[in-house]
């Protein structure tokens, strides 16, 4: 790139001059980009150029970008790409995916879970049911089983149906004293 500079007399003249403030409408990033690409009409470009002329930050931005956009670019660090990719996740992708058929109504509750054979975790469900049956049977057996229960029931029934006023061992004993 050339390093052509302006004559010092011109510079001296310029340094003795000042530009007044120029009121301008806000410039969008899209306007600025269009101006950098030279896509604007003369009138539109004049509006941007007036703003760029009075704003040193915009001038620097324009000069930098014009330089960068005309050059081959080096590779970006992999870390930048990895972090940027993570900003848009699979959840977002699913949200905007083609609409699919509504899923079947899911039954809720322990009973439904245990006997819903069409769903996953079949082995776990089978083990749970077996364990519940084993526990119930063993508990019943430890309690004496069916025969003992029936005997106890018979005894209680017999005792409750006995006439309280009829003779028994106690009344016989008391009666013997009189």
């Amino acid at each position: 790139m050339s390093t052509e500079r302006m004559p010092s007399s011109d510079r001296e003249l310029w340094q003795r001059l000042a530009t007044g403030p120029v009121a301008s409408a806000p410039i969008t990033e899209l306007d600025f980009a269009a101006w950098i690409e030279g896509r604007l009409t003369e009138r539109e470009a004049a509006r941007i150029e007036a703003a760029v002329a009075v704003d040193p930050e915009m001038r620097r931005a324009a000069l930098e970008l014009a330089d960068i956009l005309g050059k081959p670019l080096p590779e970006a660090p992999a870390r930048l790409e990895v972090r940027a990719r993570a900003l848009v996740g699979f959840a977002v992708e699913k949200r905007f995916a083609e609409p699919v058929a509504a899923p079947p109504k899911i039954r809720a509750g322990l009973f439904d879970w245990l006997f819903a054979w069409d769903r996953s975790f079949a082995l776990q469900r089978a083990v749970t049911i077996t364990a519940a049956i084993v526990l119930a049977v063993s508990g019943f057996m430890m309690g004496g089983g069916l025969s003992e229960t029936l005997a106890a029931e018979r005894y209680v029934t017999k005792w409750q149906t006995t006439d309280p006023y009829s003779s028994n061992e106690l009344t016989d004993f008391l009666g013997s004293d009189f």
Partner: protein
Amino acid sequence: MTELNQIDLRALAKGDKRTWDGFVAAAAPLINAVVRRALASYRLSEEDVMDAGQDVFVRLCANDFRLLKTYDPARAGLSTWLAVVARSAAVDHARRRRQATQPLDEVPEANLGVEDRHIEKLKIPQGLLTERQLLILKCLYDEERDVAEVAQLLKIDAQTVRSTHHKALLRLRAHFGEETP
């Protein structure tokens, strides 16, 4: 690798993951270059530069891709628009982080000069110079850029820059009563 101009902007604005990944791969070199250049004078750490680059991508996809949806391909190329957005985001990031520092020899002389308050500068009347003439003089003298750089910016040839500069000075000398050299 997907080129920036091959990106499906509709799918991108809808948040399609695959399109986003392609966009990141295509845009990362440009965003990286713009951010590094914009932050060069701020003397920030590599970590800060990475964060500034990430800020650009965050800005693009924030609020359901609101910024990205403002882009209009009929008005400007995607890479130019992205470069403008990236620079703007990088400068914002740097301002949040710390004050800019710049080596003395990189600062244009015009910015370093202590203004003599006793010498009142002559104000250029509005309308004396065209916007383009004023911009060319500002770039050449205030920014200390050479003719080729200004020509590149304005997409005109160097000779046009020289002649515009010459005409602008003639007008200024005529107005302020100076003799032409």
